[in-house]
């Protein structure tokens, strides 16, 4: 992030579309809403699993063409979260 305050008072990623990688086969793409003891809450979520082909290609295409929303809301347990990257930082 470039230091620009997007939503003062919220988590720095609040409102930012992110790629959330887990320790398993599933990767989530969606808008970061908040994080609490239940986990990371994402809105307008697309979900990649191996049946959709290459994860890197899926993410690249999503960065270029946008997210195809499948679920309005997903909560990912904190223990499952490996990395969160803003989708805007993905090279297209």
């Amino acid at each position, binding site marked *: 992030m*470039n230091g*620009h305050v*997007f939503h003062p008072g919220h988590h720095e990623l609040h409102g930012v*579309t992110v790629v959330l990688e887990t320790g398993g086969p599933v990767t989530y793409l969606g808008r970061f809403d908040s994080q609490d003891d239940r986990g990371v809450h994402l809105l307008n979520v697309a979900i990649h699993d191996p049946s959709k082909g290459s994860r890197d290609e899926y993410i690249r295409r999503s960065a270029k*063409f*946008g*997210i195809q929303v499948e679920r309005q809301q997903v909560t990912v347990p904190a223990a499952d979260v490996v990395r969160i990257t803003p*989708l*805007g930082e993905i090279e297209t």
Partner: protein
Amino acid sequence: MPYNPALVAPMREEMVRMGARELTTVAEVDATLGDQRGTMLVFVNSVCGCAAGNARPALRLALEHAVKPQQVVTVFAGQDLEATARARQYFAEYQPSSPSMALLRDGEVVHFVHRHMIEGRSPQLVANELVKAFDKHFAVAV
């Protein structure tokens, strides 16, 4: 459900002040995008904070650059529902998001700025990327 028109009027006026032409009906969209020639930027406006704080100011900055689209038009997502849906059909391979910007040259989308390329970034940063796209796609060969 659209907001009270009085509340969004300043958001429309900001676009008009920077030289954008509003497309508020399907007919206007089709007349403008149906046989688009030359260079154009379609700005999908929005009531959200990243339109107010990031996207609109960024476009205003970018339009100060020597190389810019010949036309700037705008539709208002969440307000002019049918016009926005129709406009999005002209760049249907890109998932809908707002705010967003489609750069067109002779009817082809040459660059697309999604919301996720705007959110969390300063207007100057977004403007810098827009200017790069203008130079790449809209500059006239000498």
